[in-house]
């Protein structure tokens, strides 16, 4: 048994709160300060904390690298897909009015959907960079 029990227990308590805070920043982003980028970085910090406390071997098993490599293009597809959806509905590229009957709702949906795109890409790239450092010298 390792002696870092205090750290492990406290980070187990912290990580869920960090993730919830990330989602709060994410969905609060269209009313106040926040948004996909900040939320993505906060979410990444949870994964980084997990890796530091429980070791990279366990982290790489629980959150495999390929998921994050996949997330980088996926977020861009969500973002650009929203844009093309507007074109398909006969509006200009990224015109959120196209996404609902009532333009104000459309703007709301549009902002949330592109922010999710940003969120996904930011997590993907941040964790990929972090893993690239963690894995250095292992191969």
């Amino acid at each position, binding site marked *: 048994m390792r002696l870092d029990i205090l750290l492990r227990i406290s980070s187990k308590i912290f990580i869920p709160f960090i993730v919830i805070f990330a989602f709060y920043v994410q969905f609060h982003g269209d009313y106040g300060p926040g948004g996909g980028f900040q939320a993505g970085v906060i979410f990444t910090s949870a994964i980084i904390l997990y890796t530091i406390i429980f070791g990279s071997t366990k982290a790489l098993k629980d959150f495999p690298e390929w998921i994050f490599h*996949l997330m*980088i*293009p*996926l977020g*861009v*597809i969500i973002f*650009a897909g929203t*844009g*093309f959806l507007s*074109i398909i509905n006969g*509006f*200009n*590229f*990224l*015109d*959120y*009015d196209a996404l609902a009957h009532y333009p104000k709702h459309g703007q709301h949906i549009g902002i949330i959907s592109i922010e999710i795109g940003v969120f996904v890409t930011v997590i993907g790239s941040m964790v990929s960079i972090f893993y690239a450092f963690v894995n250095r010298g292992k191969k």
Partner: protein
Amino acid sequence: MIEHIAAIVVMLPIISSVFVMLIRNNSINWLISTTASLITSIASIMMYLQISKNGNISYAMGGWEPPVGIEYRIDEFNALFIILISIASFLILLYARHSLNSELKENKISTFYSMYLLCLGGLIGILSTGDAFNAFVFLEISSLATYILISMGSDRRALLSAYQYLIMGTIGATLYVIGVGLIFVLTGSLNLHDISIRIQELELYRPLYASLAFITVGIALKVALFPLHAWLPNAYAYAPSVGTAFLSSTATKVAIYLLIKYLFLVYGYDVVYSNKIFVFVIIGLSILAMFGASLIAIFQSNLKKLFAYSSVAQIGYITLGIGLANYNGLIGSTVHIINHSIIKAAIFLAIGCIVFKTKISDTHELTGLGKKMPVIAILLTISSLSLIGIPGTVGFISKWYLIIGALEQGWWLVVLSLAISSLLALIYVGRIIELMWFHQPEDALIVNSKSLPVEMLAITFILTLATVYFGIDTRLTAGLAEIAVQNVLLGGQ
């Protein structure tokens, strides 16, 4: 769909680059990228026809009307470059498959296609956007993709040169943003067309000149204007051959477009050219580029580096036309952007063929190549000759316009230096031609038995043919350039 064409031309390469990243199968990815760039080329030609029929396109991104929202503004000037860039990248992608297979590791090829398309999308974005800050974003998108393209070269020095370019490119982009920030403070607008109207009413000239200086130097780093060219030779020399051909025929050209756009369509002729120091610096640096870079090229032993320095010299010709700023000078610049694009694509693709067969990198290894690979040697000779500006090739056309432009200004020294720098080009090109044709092949020259793929030879042949064809029939290149300069840069006077 036709009314969204301005957005589609930019978004199609970017979204395809994302799918290429997801799929990661080299053959399928080659097919996706080639198709995407083909559709982009067709769309850009449709866009040009649309403009010549119905006038300029103004596309409001996200439905926010300009000048508040981001506007994509397409006129005959940037539509011409969009066609050039997209067709050039389509041809190079057609060529790319076997060349990349032989030069890159298999797991890197998908990333290469993805970054290639991302860079293409970024470049077309710079060309189409009518928003100063949006142009910066696309500048960064294309630059970041470019750094990755360069770093993929098989030589380890590719990493170093990519890093060098990253530092220089970031400094350039920072200076550009500082300039845009100054303009925003002065005019309160980021829409380039709106800025050009509001600048007329300004009385504060000092901050305006400061912003002009920041933007010019920032873009000049991307253009690789002579004293700021240090990143270019290494980047071109160590990138994969396909990447070099793509960068030399598109990336610097788009930066030059941005410079012309700022000087003539944002600040306007009166603000920029009433400042004699500015004209003196631009002309002086262009002439320095023509001489300095050509002289360095003469003493280069690395084949790709030699032509990279020659690119720096040729960029000098283009900025010389910008400095002349009269009708013929501007046509010379615009035509030379197109012509140099074709010439350098042809040369670097021919070098790509040679590398595919022999893996050489130094000029002295070319000895006797004319005997071992006659077809490629002939193509390389023809396209190198158009670099000098032999009559009957494209290089002659652009120099002709530049000389007429300089004569109209009565600047005899400029005319003289154009002639002398052509002689310098004759020396470095002549050295290569001499090595290829007038020596017996050395035993060290090992030509492997892999037969050259048909499409590599065909694309090199088509581009070389274009350097001769557009040197004789200039209706398409010079004609479109005349329309662009007449209607857009000189405002239809």
